[in-house]
């Protein structure tokens, strides 16, 4: 299959300015997304994954937030260089988004059908009646029974799972090239989570879009993503295919995350956890940002920040262990065994 790049993000930096100083929420993030591909962005809360996703649509709350550097190339057009009018035509049309909170992300005083249809009218120029019919079709497509009736209802009349399906219907109404799903299942029950993920995957097959799936849940990522970027303290620390990442994690942080997953077929005394805390975005250390928590950290790690190294095509890691400068190569072997 010929690879076709839909979205390319280069060195994205989103900072927040407040009285406490400058918070580097997103600090030099790069990744690419191919047509039909699903990219997972994984990390703890506060690592900048949500701000990355909001930056893609230029939805970062401003002030205090500001995208200060980088390129976001959607089909080779830089979103950051678009005028407000051009940006509006892309939002919800070529690139759309599902948010974490289905309870609060829908307007409480408008019918859900109208909330879907207004987007269709706007971007596809359909008449009021045709747009409404398409909205009903979309509600049917996301598996809600009695879509004609549901379309006329307001969000308070729907369950959380149904509201998230409406969000999906809304986001996909204009068949976007890219769908950003920012923790779309976090606020939902486990059984509903599985249904929502199924729907997203099915629709991806039908509509052929690319997905960026943002989550803190490695389990979900393993299930649906082709490729994963692990974020830590505003940066991508490791990137690779899902298989390679789970079989052979390179970054100590990635390894820690995987170790802390409960394993189904192994007896475990206790789940391992990563000790220490994430550094404050107002005051990152000068060296590697993970050094404080890393069991392998050396003087070099604390003094100088590692680059994102390409280990092999499609596999990158931000860690001194894989550099020429690294002295303690033995440790690395111990770790990956």
């Amino acid at each position, binding site marked *: 299959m010929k690879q076709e790049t839909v979205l390319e993000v280069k060195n994205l930096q989103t900072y927040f300015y407040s009285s406490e100083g400058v918070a580097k929420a997103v600090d030099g993030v790069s990744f690419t997304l191919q047509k039909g591909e699903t990219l997972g962005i994984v990390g703890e809360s506060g690592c900048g994954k949500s701000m990355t996703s909001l930056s893609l649509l230029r*939805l970062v*709350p401003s002030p205090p937030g500001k995208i200060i550097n980088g390129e976001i190339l959607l089909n080779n057009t830089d979103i950051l260089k678009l005028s407000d009018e051009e940006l509006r035509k892309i939002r919800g049309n070529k690139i759309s988004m599902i*948010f974490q909170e289905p309870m609060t*992300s829908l307007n*409480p005083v*408008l019918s859900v059908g109208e909330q879907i249809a*207004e987007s269709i009218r706007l971007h596809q120029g359909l008449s009021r009646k045709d747009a409404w019919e398409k909205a009903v079709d979309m509600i049917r497509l996301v598996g809600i029974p009695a879509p004609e009736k549901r379309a006329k209802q307001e969000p*308070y009349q729907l369950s959380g799972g149904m509201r998230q399906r409406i969000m999906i219907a*809304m986001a996909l109404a204009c068949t976007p090239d890219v769908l950003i799903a920012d923790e779309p299942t976090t606020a939902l029950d486990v059984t509903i989570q599985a249904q929502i993920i199924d729907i997203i995957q099915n629709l991806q097959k039908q509509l052929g879009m690319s997905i960026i799936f943002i989550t803190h849940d490695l389990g979900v990522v393993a299930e649906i993503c082709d490729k994963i970027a692990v974020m830590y303290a505003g940066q991508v620390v490791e990137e690779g295919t899902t298989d390679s990442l789970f079989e052979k994690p390179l970054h100590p942080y990635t390894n820690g995350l995987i170790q802390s997953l409960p394993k189904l077929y192994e007896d475990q005394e206790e789940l391992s956890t990563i000790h220490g805390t994430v550094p404050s975005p107002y005051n990152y250390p000068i060296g590697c940002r993970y050094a404080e928590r890393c069991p392998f950290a050396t003087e070099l790690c604390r003094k100088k920040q590692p680059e994102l190294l390409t280990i092999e095509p499609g596999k990158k890691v931000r860690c001194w262990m894989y550099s020429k400068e690294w002295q303690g190569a033995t440790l690395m072997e111990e770790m990956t065994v």
Partner: protein
Amino acid sequence: MTLFILKRLAQIIPVTLGVTLVVFLIMQMIPGDPAIILAGEGASQETVAELRENLGLNKPLAVQYTDYIKNLLQGDMGHSLKNNQPVFEEITARLPITIELAFYSILITIVLGLVAGIISAIRPYSFMDVGLMIVALLGISLPSFWLGILLMYLFSVQLHWLPVAGWDSAKHIILPAVTLGAGGAAIVARMTRSSMLEVVNQDYIRTAKAKGLKGYIIILKHALRNALIPVITVVGLQFGSLLGGTVLVESVFAVNGLGRMIVDAIRTRDIPIVQGGVLVASLIFVFINLFVDILYRIFNKRMDLN
């Protein structure tokens, strides 16, 4: 919903009764012997006795009150002490004027208040916003009777655009209505602004932006509808201040409405007229509050489950 309306209707019965009780007690609160004071200085003993008999003041309090309620239910509010006209007729003659004034004033309150509040909220802390909010702060601080005099001086005395006083033409309505509505407009503007600022930070506004909607659609369709909900209550309460304010504004502009009737009656100690006027104004307010509550409920039911 029907249940809510019925419940709310049941609730206003004790309040209405309480209001009639307070109004009834006005007569009893007069220090000393009400009959002597109301008859005025130098009245003969017979006049005082007759007045006492007419007002029923020699009966026990409980009987007086039940009589008062019985009469009220028949539309009998007693007679003016000055010209012996039925209070009910005096009120029905004046009420339409006050209702007209109140209607235009609340219109000004709502329209001016909403527009100013929305403009302020669109660009908070901008030049326009700060300016409007200073005006609004002045609006709640200026005494309405003084604002009325200032407007009268400017538009009637200096510019001769509008008549000084009276209630004959549309031109006569403008100054009193603006004077009476200004304070409420200021309060509604402040409330609308803060409500809008709270709403524009909500997740669903971010969703609307993510859909690529135009800015004014986001403001008018998505934000305003939600921001208006708390404003409804404020407008309802404003009705109260407005009805009370008619007393002052009608006096400033010599408008022959209910408010001025009450003030004139207090000056001449025509207590039955005062009682009738205060009762009618209060009952109107009670029912407006009921209506506003129901309206609020209709708009707000969707948020119950959140």
